[in-house]
């Protein structure tokens, strides 16, 4: 293993500073006692965090986003696991098409998806409905689950499953008792990644949310374009804290680098 030279380490520190600077400044400004966006110089205050929890719009959007992310991640798993089984275990006409169809939301810009959903919903009269918002998020997060399910299935030793079948287990029993527990890390990792992606999504949601179904990122975007006060910093700091927590859990449980970088 070769060591990095001093120039490499200086470069590394500069990159780290660049990556962390905007996040650190948010967390500092969130504790300001002043009325303007400023670094806390005279003392630390929690007043802007209190203000967030007293702000009904932010609280409602937060719960909207939590529900939306939970539902869409769960339903995405229910689509992605059987689809993953079909794609990885069978050869059938249309298999490549299905694979491309399920992964296509990764390639189509979210902006285009948002515009397309808006048109569909306007035609069928579904604008502003929470269920249809969930449907759009399922489309966006399913590819993330599918990729992890496919990775888990491809690395699977199938002899245990075949043994179960030989011993008389039906296909469903073999799946429930043998295959599902073995790919569970992939499914859980996929669910969490789907949850985070749904929770953070802005560009598509901004087209399909109505005042009653506004998600937290959309609410924050609208707030940031209208007013500049430290409340925005406090909400952002809370989001960073939630994400950091989710990252820690993900990392402890599966290794975050494995989920984000992909399994080899």
């Amino acid at each position: 293993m070769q060591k990095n030279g001093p120039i490499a380490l200086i470069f590394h520190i500069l990159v780290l500073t660049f990556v962390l600077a905007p996040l650190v400044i948010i967390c500092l400004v969130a504790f300001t006692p002043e009325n303007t966006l400023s670094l806390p110089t005279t003392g630390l205050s929690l007043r802007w965090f209190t203000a967030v929890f007293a702000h009904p719009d932010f609280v409602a959007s937060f719960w909207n986003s939590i529900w939306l992310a939970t539902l869409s991640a769960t339903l995405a798993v229910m689509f992605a696991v059987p689809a993953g089984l079909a794609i990885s275990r069978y050869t059938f006409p249309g298999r490549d098409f299905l694979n491309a169809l399920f992964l296509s939301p990764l390639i189509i810009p979210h902006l285009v998806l948002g515009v397309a959903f808006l048109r569909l919903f306007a035609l069928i009269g579904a604008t502003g409905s929470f269920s249809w918002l969930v449907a759009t998020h399922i489309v966006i997060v399913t590819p993330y689950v599918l990729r992890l399910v496919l990775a888990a299935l491809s690395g699977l030793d199938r002899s245990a499953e075949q043994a179960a079948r030989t011993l008389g287990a039906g296909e469903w029993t073999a799946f429930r008792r043998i295959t599902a527990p073995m790919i569970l890390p992939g499914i859980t990792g996929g669910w969490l990644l789907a949850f985070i992606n749904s929770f953070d999504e802005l560009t598509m949601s901004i087209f399909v949310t109505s005042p009653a179904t506004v998600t937290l990122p959309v609410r924050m975007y609208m707030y940031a374009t209208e007013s500049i006060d430290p409340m925005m910093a406090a909400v952002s700091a809370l989001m960073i804290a939630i994400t950091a927590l989710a990252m820690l859990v993900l990392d402890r449980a599966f290794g975050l680098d494995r989920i984000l970088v992909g399994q080899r």
Partner: protein
Amino acid sequence: MTPRSPTSSAPWLLAGPGALFFIGLVLLPLALTVILSFHAYDHSSGIQNTFTLSHYVTVLTDGYYLEIFWRTLRIAALTTIICAAIGVPEAYILSRMRDPWRSVFLLVIIGPLLVSVVVRTFGWSMLLGSQGLVNQALQLLGFAPARILYTETAIVIALVHVMLPFMVIPVWTALQKLDPMVEAAAWTLGASHFTALRRVVMPQVTLGMLSGSLIVFGLSASAFAVPALLGGRRLKMAATLVYDEYLQELNWPLGATIAIIVLVANLCIMLAYNRMIEARARRTLG
């Protein structure tokens, strides 16, 4: 593998519900949007039931739209180049670290991927504002305060921040496949550090860098939050233009036209680039 007959209905039962869902919610809306882009539009009575090519003609000939497309391409290209210039060496440095540090710093670099883009953009708007930390630092160093917020510079800085993980991840993956002993072997055989880097490490890294560039370019060209929050009202990019056409001008057919152009341009660039990467992979990896 247990042999399965190719005519088995099992795969269709498994994937069928998802497939129907995706056809209904991806292919159908996209087709409807393509149709919408050919509908005529009237400012007083809205979307007409007659069909016209005029939106495409307008968007592809009017200087106002061309300038925005040109700006979008320029910003996306610049972001891609800077991401490569920062991300590739950083991935290489990370891959040479020892383990507790290596995992920790990899997390720090790719972790922000999971923080909402609105949050990160908001952080940059505070840093780059006229009273922001960057301007205070400039003044301390004796420079005149610069107007950074609401310029293309601000958009590029924030986009690089948002996109950097997408460059580091594929380069890191490519480097993981490289046995460090190969580089050491090159030194033993008399190659200088520079030659070893150029002949052994670079070919692997280039493949990762090319696929990273593709993702970074595609995402930058259709980015919404960063130009919307850091570009101000005048500096529009393709995504903010579509947003304004839809939700402010209410000219949906024109907005749909721009969105379809963004989609088609994106797909064309991806296909061409993919073909280039594959050709290159065949040449370098044999």
